[in-house]
């Protein structure tokens, strides 16, 4: 009994307690923001944020006077459009990378990898000029295209690793049973990698939802995604921290929930390559 107790105390001191400290460091900025957002603006500067007398007043103001609703819709359309474009282009490409061996395969795969390594700023300047000359600035199209520069390469790699995980023998069996290659793709491979497609799609959605610099540069009066709206709030309502933090919570909510929902599968896909290296 004694031995068990000392080992338990030892574990608490060397594992539980340090983990708790790290989690406090990780979560407290977020919780502090949440706490501030439910505190009445007038009380914030006299008593500081507190749970007593918590109110949703800041959130109501956010939607009524600031009009956060339309920003959420903009973000939703841009992120959703990016998911569609990203997946539609990357799933066939990933299938080709996974199932065929052909000349230039390695080079093409590296080409997709190198895109995400290049500085965003190198891309953002010419894309703005390009969209401006095509008259596309401040349209959903421009923002979906810009976000696709990140989404396509990422999902090509993710999907290739998922499809690699589905045994080739399965599509070969389907083909000997009379399926065409496309039949095998649609009837065997796609259903089996649905979880992978969902995880990749959700990740594209999160990235596009959280994206800020493209939204700032290529958006405008008509299209104003949530991240730009939050940043504008910081400028306009400088000291109204109740309102600002409420905006932060609302803006972060969809991405955070989706992330917690798919994190296990996503992490498995993302770390696979790195562990091998």
């Amino acid at each position: 009994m004694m031995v068990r107790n000392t080992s338990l105390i030892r574990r608490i001191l060397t594992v539980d307690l340090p983990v708790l400290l790290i989690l406090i460091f990780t979560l407290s900025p977020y919780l502090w923001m949440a706490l501030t957002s439910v505190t009445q603006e007038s009380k914030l500067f006299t008593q500081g944020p507190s749970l007593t007398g918590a109110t949703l007043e800041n959130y109501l103001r956010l939607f009524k006077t600031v009009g956060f609703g339309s920003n959420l819709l903009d973000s939703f359309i841009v992120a959703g459009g990016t998911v569609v474009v990203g997946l539609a282009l990357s799933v066939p490409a990933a299938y080709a990378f996974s199932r065929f061996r052909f000349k230039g395969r390695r080079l093409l795969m590296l080409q997709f990898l190198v895109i995400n390594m290049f500085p965003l700023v190198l891309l953002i300047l010419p894309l703005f000029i390009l969209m401006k000359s095509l008259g596309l600035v401040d349209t959903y199209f421009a923002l979906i295209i810009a976000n696709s520069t990140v989404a396509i390469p990422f999902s090509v790699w993710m999907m290739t690793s998922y499809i690699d995980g589905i045994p080739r023998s399965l599509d070969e069996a389907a083909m000997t049973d009379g399926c065409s290659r496309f039949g095998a793709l649609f009837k065997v491979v796609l259903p089996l990698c649905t979880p992978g497609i969902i995880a990749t799609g959700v990740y594209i959605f999160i990235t596009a939802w959280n994206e800020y610099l493209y939204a700032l540069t290529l958006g405008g009066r008509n299209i104003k995604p949530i991240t730009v709206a939050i940043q504008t709030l910081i400028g306009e309502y400088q000291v109204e921290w109740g309102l600002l933090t409420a905006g932060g919570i609302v803006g972060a909510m969809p991405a955070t929930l989706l992330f917690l929902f798919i994190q296990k599968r996503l992490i498995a896909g993302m770390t696979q390559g790195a562990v091998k290296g």
Partner: protein
Amino acid sequence: MSVTTVPPVPLSRRVLPLVMLSPAVLVTLAIVFLPMVQALWMSLHDYVLFRPKNFDWVGLKNFVTVWNDPVFWTSLRHTVIWIAITVPAQMLLGLATALLLNQNFPWRGLARALVIIPWALPSVVIALMWVWIYDSNFGVLNDLMLRFNLISSAIPWLADPDTALYAIILTLTWQGFPFFAVMILAGLQSIPRSYYEAASIDGASQARQFWHITLPGLSGVLMTATLLRVIWVANSIDVIYVMTGGGPGYSTYTLPLYALVKARTGLDYGYGSALAVSFTLLLLGFVVLYLRRAGRNIA
């Protein structure tokens, strides 16, 4: 000499992969590589947006100006400090977190899920909440430090040129360490348990096991994650842009931020592109190192 006859690959098998690849390849060519070439082209011209008709070839003039521009050197110094502190801090914190989360304790699943939250947050929101924490009048950081007598008067963390860069570095460390933790955790799980069992039978201490089994086992992951992170941290400007916009003065300018501000605010796209191209060339070494590692894994 015998000639082994390889059955010819049917045409459909040769063409099909290219057909399936071409949409993705063509689109990325159009929206990534074409703009990059355009950036390079713009950097060789005088191109200021309020005189859009003037697009005069100036050769390397912009790059000579970059070389003689004191703000470029200041920004470069900040970029180096920025990477040299942020990435090791993220890695050490991530390593500690991963080692802890690899232990057995009842609420491990919950802890693993919660620790990655900073990673999922939009950088604008991250910037917003840290600006609130650092606020010089009502920020909780000053409040806590005053209460514990660590400082004698409130410090305007983001408005003081001596502290602003480091305040942002702390924010970025917070944002990025979960990435290292997740990667390292995956690395730890790939080290066979039997190594540790054999080592403890031989009487190796915990510290020696860490040094001789864990670290070598993690070296691949650490290398890959560090390279990736150097590239990302160097490129990341959204947090700085929202928190300080580069200020006060030039005290939080990094190279990509300088390029962006020059183009967005100064409307000088020629010079902005030259800055972006210079920065890309400086970063290229890390990119090549990373690609070589990643290239080895392509079967």
